[in-house]
């Protein structure tokens, strides 16, 4: 499971850094390295872009996993360079941005957008597999999540927009319910698809969501 990200455009980053001249750049060695949006190479490229914008780069680092508590250590190690900067430009996912905001009190500006939580299905192909709805249906849908894989998140079968196993929003996208039907049929469990699914509870865990393990 990885946070799938996309780099913001240079224009957007420039806008985000308006009035901030001295920049410390932070990449992440996990998800954004894998998606080539915030690994060592992209951090170097970003530094060049920043210099072209007329910014002063006070330093950079790639934290092994920017979302965990080791981030504090990594930031402490670079404290003097971060302190001399006006802002941190984060090339980790939003979880990393959140983490970096906890230390040193510097503004953290994201250079990437976090798109979804995905799995690498084939090399370089990342697909969303779970939207964390809190009511896992996978046992009844042959391991294919209709909340995630159906554009409309339908739980009672396909809509009228299904077309030769593809979705009305994009001919490249599979119709989740055709996939579910085929797999349930193979498993001899089509009766599961015939069951009525009641409206979903959108507040299984009240937003903002948090759980305390005791």
């Amino acid at each position, binding site marked *: 499971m990885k946070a799938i990200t996309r780099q913001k455009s240079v224009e957007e980053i420039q806008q985000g850094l308006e009035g901030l001249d001295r920049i410390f750049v932070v990449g992440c060695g996990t998800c954004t390295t894998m998606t080539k949006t915030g690994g060592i190479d992209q951090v170097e490229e970003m530094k060049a872009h920043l210099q072209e914008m007329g910014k002063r780069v006070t330093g950079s680092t790639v934290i092994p996993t920017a979302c965990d508590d080791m981030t504090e250590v990594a930031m402490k190690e670079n404290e003097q360079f971060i302190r001399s900067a006006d802002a941190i430009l984060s090339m980790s996912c939003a979880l990393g941005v959140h983490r970096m905001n906890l230390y040193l009190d510097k503004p953290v500006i994201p250079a990437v957008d976090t798109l979804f939580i995905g799995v690498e299905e084939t090399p370089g192909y990342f697909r969303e597999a779970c939207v964390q709805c809190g009511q896992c249906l996978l046992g009844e849908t042959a391991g294919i999540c209709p909340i995630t894989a159906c554009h*409309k998140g*339908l739980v*009672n*079968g396909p809509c*009228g*927009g299904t*077309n030769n196993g593809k979705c009305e929003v994009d001919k490249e996208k599979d119709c989740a319910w055709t996939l579910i*039907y085929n797999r349930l*049929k193979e498993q001899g469990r*089509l009766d599961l698809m015939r069951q009525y699914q009641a409206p979903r509870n959108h507040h299984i865990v009240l937003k903002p969501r948090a759980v305390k393990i005791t």
Partner: protein
Amino acid sequence: MVSRFKEALDSGKFVITSEVAPPKGTNLEKFLHHIDLLKDSVDALNITDHQSSVMRFPSLGGALAVVEKGGEPIMQMTCRDRNRMALEADLLFAYSRGVRNVLCLTGDAVPVGDHKEAMGVFDLDSLQLLKAIRQMMDGQDLGGNNLDGAVEFCAGAIVTPEAQPIEPQLIKFEKKIEAGAEFFQTQAIYDLENFTKFMDYARKFKTPILAGIVLLSSARMARYMTENVPGIFVPQDLIDELTGVPKEEMLAKGIEIAGRTITALKKDAICDGVHIMAIGREEAVPDIIAAAGL
């Protein structure tokens, strides 16, 4: 006040419905004209709900206009734009103002329409909406609370007999029947042989089915639909038939094809009626009905 449309369905007659699309804006002149034109020649008139996800005057407002003119509306209701509370509230209002028929749809996806960045709601789906209506008819809302004054609707749904693959579609069709669908209006059908096969299967459920008749206004439109619209298949011989006449006669040919199809459906009692969709050519609907000899 009961549903006149329901009475027509129960009477065993060959039922005719058609549809009118509300305008984009507040100029209702043409829309009201179409209602006047059609309300007396059909058993009920569907009012579309932001069809193709294009924002328009609401189906609820359109249905009220039909009621005001003494017609019988079928209010189309999609789950795309309203959560369950808004849908329930609109059903209460619609009922209070004389609307007695609802067609429950999931709704097209937002990105195919003209508000591509809007949120697609889909808090309910077509099936859950059907069930919600049943629950409200029993005097209860979806929160489990009692209603002070229940609703009474003839609620129906849609089915796509040409869907590929058809099996998942049929499972949903059967679930809609179990959820209490009182009628079905189908997606456009042109291949009578295939539709007859579908009806051989669907008959055993005893829920009235109105075959979707979409007017083919030109060969280009026919080709476009068969290539691009999910669940629509126009056989090549119909496209050839349209191509075989001069451009200015294509509409007349399309009317003839629609009329002929309806005649065949009625003659062999293949289904319980038809739902005529002229998509922007509402003026042609009376001609289609005449061409069908109804």
